[in-house]
């Protein structure tokens, strides 16, 4: 599902729970806004004790003072139970605001929240703000950053990507989760929204084209829209992609590999990694000969990833 299509979703009426299996296994619980968190019957204490991140969505086109007050209460309460919690505030629907006003709103919200926290004598609260909209890729970007905070291996991954980029002439590299289009890590150069969008669209191109030549098309015939759903894990095609990283695959290496040359001399590079991850990068092409070097280095990177995660006791991986 594309962010835009969420327009047609009904609003959530009761708490929902969804699991994601990827490099990091995580679960998302959605608590609808009309629910009173502090009702005694509701077991918020248990929930807050378990979670790593708390995401609070504010409608930026609405009067948000009440929302901020509510947020304040939640932060105070949750922080007491679990001080390690990451608070993530999504300032949503910013598409309706002009560029200047957008930043003003963000500054205003940040100011109010931090003031309140100071007043409440809470120190060391991890809180971050993200501007999001369903009309572009910002929601992916925000969720990427949120998830990244929960990946304990992040420094290792970033370091690996940095080394890879340095030695292969890759300008920008992302480690994507193919299902959700969230990037779990990127090298240390600044992220440009356009680069991210092109890279994430490129995943669609590669996966969709490959799926068209899957021998039995009947399974996926039900989905006329070829775009992948960020939330769904049950699409048969994607299952195939994830399986590709499994041990049953041919030993010669990654399943899916896709490159595309652009007129401005850039090369988009996609290579499937372990567990439904894909490395997507942008290379300034100086010659086709170098591609072999990139392939080789990416393969080394893949082995590195496998070794990092082979140690992970929570997620045993046969490789």
């Amino acid at each position: 599902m594309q962010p835009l299509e969420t327009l047609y979703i009904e609003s959530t009426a009761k708490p929902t729970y969804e699991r994601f299996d990827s490099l990091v296994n995580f679960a998302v619980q959605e608590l609808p806004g009309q629910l009173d968190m502090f009702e005694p019957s509701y077991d918020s204490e248990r929930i807050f004790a378990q979670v790593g991140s708390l995401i609070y969505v504010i409608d930026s086109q609405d009067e948000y003072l009440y929302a901020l007050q509510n947020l304040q209460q939640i932060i105070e309460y949750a922080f007491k139970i679990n001080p390690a919690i990451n608070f993530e505030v999504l300032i949503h629907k910013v598409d309706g605001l002009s560029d200047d006003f957008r930043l003003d709103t963000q500054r205003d919200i940040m100011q109010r929240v931090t003031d309140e926290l100071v007043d409440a004598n809470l120190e060391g609260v991890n809180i971050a703000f993200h501007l999001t909209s369903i009309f572009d890729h910002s929601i992916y970007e925000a969720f990427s950053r949120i998830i990244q905070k929960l990946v304990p291996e992040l420094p290792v991954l970033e370091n690996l990507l940095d080394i890879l980029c340095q030695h292969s002439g890759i300008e920008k590299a992302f480690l994507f989760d193919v299902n959700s289009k969230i990037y779990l890590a990127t090298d240390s150069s600044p992220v440009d929204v356009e680069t991210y969008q092109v890279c994430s669209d490129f995943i669609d191109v590669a996966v969709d084209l490959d799926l068209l030549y899957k021998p039995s098309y009947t399974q996926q015939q039900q989905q006329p829209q070829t775009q992948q759903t960020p939330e769904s894990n049950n699409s048969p095609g994607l299952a195939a992609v994830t399986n590709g990283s499994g041990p049953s695959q041919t030993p010669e290496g990654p399943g899916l590999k896709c490159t595309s040359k652009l007129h401005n001399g850039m090369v988009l590079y996609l290579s499937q990694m372990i567990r439904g991850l894909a490395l997507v990068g942008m290379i300034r092409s100086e010659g086709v000969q170098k591609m072999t070097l990139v392939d080789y280095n990416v393969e080394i990177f893949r082995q590195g990833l496998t070794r990092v995660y082979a140690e992970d006791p929570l997620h045993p991986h046969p490789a």
Partner: protein
Amino acid sequence: MVEVLIHVFDVESKEVTKDIETFIRCLRYLREFSPDAKVFVLLHKMDLVRAERRDEVFNATMRTLRDQAKPFEFSLTGFATSIWDESLYKAWSSIVCSLIPNMATFQKHLESFADISEAQEVVLFERTTFLVISHVSGGQASTFVSSIKSKTDPKLDPKRFEKISNIIKTYKQSCSKMRSQFQTVSLHGLNCSAYIDTLTPNTFIMVVMPPAGRAPAGANDIDGNTIIANIRASRTWFQTIEESN
């Protein structure tokens, strides 16, 4: 001179007789001034008709139109279209196809190209619209129009050409965000290996190879570079055909 008349009918129209009247008047003038024109009829907004009744509605309407158009001796080609699926791509592909002269020569050479490359499928696209002009599947050539009737590989999605058009168009759009266009795409997937490259100034070619595991024995050593070299080598030849029009 009119080469092609594309008449779009609203399938849900309230004034069917008036629509047909307009259409007939068009045909009358066409007969007079451009007797060689090809006539295409799109029955649009097909999504509003219930799925099981679509064929029936389409056939009935086409029958009426053909009866009405009989005195003008045009052969009508009809398509049921909707903006909610790939049917428009299909219709436009056929229309574009009908405008290309010496299609047969193209077809023949595409066929031998597929044969030499041992490709599973070769698809030819128009450059700007990325509509499918022609394709060769499993050594059997067919223009876009005839392929609809003859069933190709039953295991593959019959709508795949329209879907490819769609995918590549989306990709083109996303490339334009970087103020650039793509030149080539090469994919090594679990189900196929595919290469997309420019063939002539007006066309793109896509060569689909079976995945390494399923390829017939002895074909495993064909790698991407061979295909790219093949495309490069055939480029001048196809260009000559195109220019000879």
